[in-house]
């Protein structure tokens, strides 16, 4: 990477924030009207993609199980 570390970190964090939302959020349409890509677990795809882009992976275990605790209300 050619960017200074801080800027690089900011950009990466911003990207993770964005992917967390566009890949794990949004309405999911299942059924016949969309291409089968809707069945793909995009979170897993993006994690694999992101992880493969990160050289050092000290916390890979934490990445492999994206779970959420809903506390709506």
């Amino acid at each position: 990477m050619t960017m200074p570390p801080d800027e690089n970190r900011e950009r990466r964090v911003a990207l993770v924030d964005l992917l967390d939302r566009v890949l794990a959020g949004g309405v999911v349409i299942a059924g016949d009207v969309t291409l089968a890509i809707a069945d793909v677990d995009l979170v897993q795809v993006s994690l694999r993609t992101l992880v493969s882009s990160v050289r050092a992976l000290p916390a890979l275990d934490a990445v492999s199980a994206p779970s959420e605790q809903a506390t709506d209300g």
Partner: protein
Amino acid sequence: MADDGTGVWVYAVVGGGRYGDELPAGVAAERVRTIEAAGLTAVVGTVGLDDFGEAALRRNLEDLDWLETTARTHDAVVGAVARNADTVPLRLATVCADDEQVRALLAESRRDFEAALRQIAGRAEWGVRAIADTTAPPAPDVGTDAPGGAGARYLARRRAELSSRDDIERALAAEAESVHTTLLRLAAMGRRQSPTAPALAGTREWMPLNGTYLVDRDRAREFADAVASLDRDHERLRLELTGPWPPYSFTGIERDSGRESP
């Protein structure tokens, strides 16, 4: 599947009202347009299946540069729509075969979209991360005259370090929980998401809170002020506010069980 090698990428669904007279170009640099059916409006763009068909998507989603560009463009369109109307975003890479299928989608999922629109009406999503400084304070001096020699002194010091680190993490987790509880009072809804892994964030810092909140637009200032105030009150937590986001994380019942099933 359309015969002409194109599909229709769906960005968002709005209930009506004014939305984006001038929307940015879409993920295929295409002109973004709308399709109406069942009292709803879908914001869509025509994309080539060479790049956005099923096989191409499976390949392209593994390419971080492609994924980043596409995600940012998708978000730019959804965000532009959301500035003018209550907007329900669709998951990235929702592609229909043609306009007729989009109309079918709106009709079939009308109740879900209407419920989602009611939930997010007049609201936006805000993200709040807490980053913690877990640096342990200096270990207590066990003294050089402690019995047992250097090895025992080392072990005693190490035990003290570990236990004080545990204590710190427990205390910080409690502080993060209290921040979350305070923010929930100002939000219509909120949830804690799994923290961004340090490797992905390019940092080794600990993130005891990765929260996202659905906040009334007329309380946005109050919410931001509360985050700033909590940041001042919690010396060992650094709070980072992001947003406003289109309400990606609050679009329906499927999220309540954590993972949706087809």
